[in-house]
């Protein structure tokens, strides 16, 4: 485990140094990512220029939700950056090289090309998250602190899992699972508003199937002292880490299944 982490870090370091040889393009990309994602917040301000609250949530509370999702997604996306190479790895047989090295294949793939421009979204997500907190009057009890940290990390793990799942589809199909973007980037769009504003079926999908709503909405509602009209038990808020862990282990099973398929078909 420690060994795997060391290798992961070494690989990330190598991909950073690789990209630094194209310094200007990195700076431009990171900056444009920051701008583009920065614009995502604008609709929230527009909505709140017309209304006071949305399903009982104020402007900064909604921005907190958005920041939580965006920051978590950015962490997940950065960690699993190499997954975006999966289509090329499978197509060009580069995956074979990964398999003849004495290190876990997932570790090698995740770390191989960590894209620096993700730092743009990372910065934006963190900014939205912390600025929102500074405008809110949160009573930072130990329980609230636990919920804040655990919901952020659970979100990161969930989004990372989704990116891994999307890479794993390459074992069965020629394209990387673009469909998963609906849950990753779409998930951020979804969870920036309190889930109570959505129709029940959509709520169901983002709470129980792809639980990104679960890990952001319930803990945030408790932290911000919101009444939950859905009537979920209070402990739901504390389940975020458990849910993220379950989801991740499910995705890892799918990954292993895909690897086994690759070993028997080589394509």
């Amino acid at each position, binding site marked *: 485990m420690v060994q795997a982490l060391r290798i992961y870090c070494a690989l990330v370091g190598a991909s950073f140094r690789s990209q630094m040889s194209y310094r200007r393009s990195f700076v431009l990309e990171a900056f444009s990512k920051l701008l583009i994602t920065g614009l995502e917040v604008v609709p929230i301000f527009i909505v709140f220029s017309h209304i006071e609250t949305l399903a009982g949530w104020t402007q900064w509370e909604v921005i907190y939700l958005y920041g939580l999702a965006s920051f978590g997604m950015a962490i997940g996306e950065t960690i699993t950056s190499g997954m975006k190479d999966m289509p090329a790895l499978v197509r060009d047989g580069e995956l074979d*090289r990964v398999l*003849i090295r004495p290190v876990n294949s997932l570790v090698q793939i995740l770390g191989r090309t960590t894209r620096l421009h993700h730092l743009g979204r990372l910065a934006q997500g963190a900014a939205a998250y912390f600025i929102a907190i500074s405008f809110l009057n949160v009573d930072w009890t130990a329980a609230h602190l636990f919920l804040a940290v655990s919901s952020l990390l659970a979100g990161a793990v969930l989004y990372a899992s989704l990116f891994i799942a999307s890479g794993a*589809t390459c074992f069965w*199909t020629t394209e990387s699972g673009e469909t998963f973007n609906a849950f990753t980037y779409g998930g951020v769009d979804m969870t920036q508003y309190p889930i109570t504003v959505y129709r029940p079926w959509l709520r169901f999908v983002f709470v129980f199937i792809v639980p990104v709503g679960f890990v952001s909405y319930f803990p945030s509602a408790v932290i911000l002292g919101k009444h939950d009209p859905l009537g979920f038990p209070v402990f739901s808020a504390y389940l975020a880490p458990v849910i993220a862990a379950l989801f991740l282990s499910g995705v890892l099973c799918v990954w292993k299944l895909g690897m086994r398929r690759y070993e028997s*078909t*080589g394509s």
Partner: protein
Amino acid sequence: MSHPNCAIRCEGLSKSFRVMRHRSGIFGALRALFSTEGADVEAVRGVSLSIDEGEFVGYLGPNGAGKSTTIKMLTGILTPSSGLVEVCGIVPHEKRRENAANIGAVFGQRTQLWWDLPPIESYRLLGKIYRVARSELEARLAELIDLFELSSLIETPVRKLSLGEKMRCELAAALLHRPRVLFLDEPTIGLDAVGKEQVRTHLRAINQERGTTVVLTSHDLDDIEALCRRAIVIDEGQIIHDGTVDSLRRTFGHHRTLVVDLAGGAAPDGFATLPNGATVTQIEGARVWIEFDADQLSAPQLIQAVLTQHDVHDLTVREIAIEEVVRRIYSNKS
């Protein structure tokens, strides 16, 4: 039980694929997960062979003959359908990571070096991946840099190196963890004559000085002749020749083809009086194919004979192709 000096052993090794159509999109993926439609292809059919430690073996065959499928089973990438496979006493697909420590691989068309970084950084990373202790790594590096004459290259980003330089760096990378068996796939592809010779010299040194077992797959029969004592030829998934390179060479001779483009238009009947060992095999307009036995007749001699009799626009000498070798092995057998 495997022989103590046995590096590679296969018995009745077979691999058949159910080739399924790759579908697009996530629903295609889900369907592929459950569907069984597709055709079975037997890529490798009952291959049995045994390679001792320290051997330098050529493994050749036409495209799609089952070469790379065999190599993938030896490296643990693919699980065989049936049969036995052992590399240094380990069943590769069962203990892929343990096997990985024993083997090295160079794929001529791909690189395992980090493209935008200088080789030295790749070596340090590989040292971590293969768990070579730092001081030990530096010692081995010094040795390899010396062996492959890399001192002027290792600080330059790989993308700026020439093909030949890259291949030398690549070989060093594959040897860093002191593999007992080295798999080489087309290591001289794309190199010029000087580059090829350099790489061959290095390969010979690895095999002779360190006793590393080498399995070389190549389309370039010159590579095989220059390096290997033993050649295994595979076609349609089955071994059709396993013996010395000399005996293989007796089968296909040392034939080359000189292709001549005449300057003065269509070739006349009774094209030219050719020296012994050369025969015209084909004439098409101004182009003439002359096959010659390089043991009897050198290319310059033949070219000179042609040039004294005709105005020539262009000349090329072609090596015998592996497909031709395979054809001759079959015709010899029947």
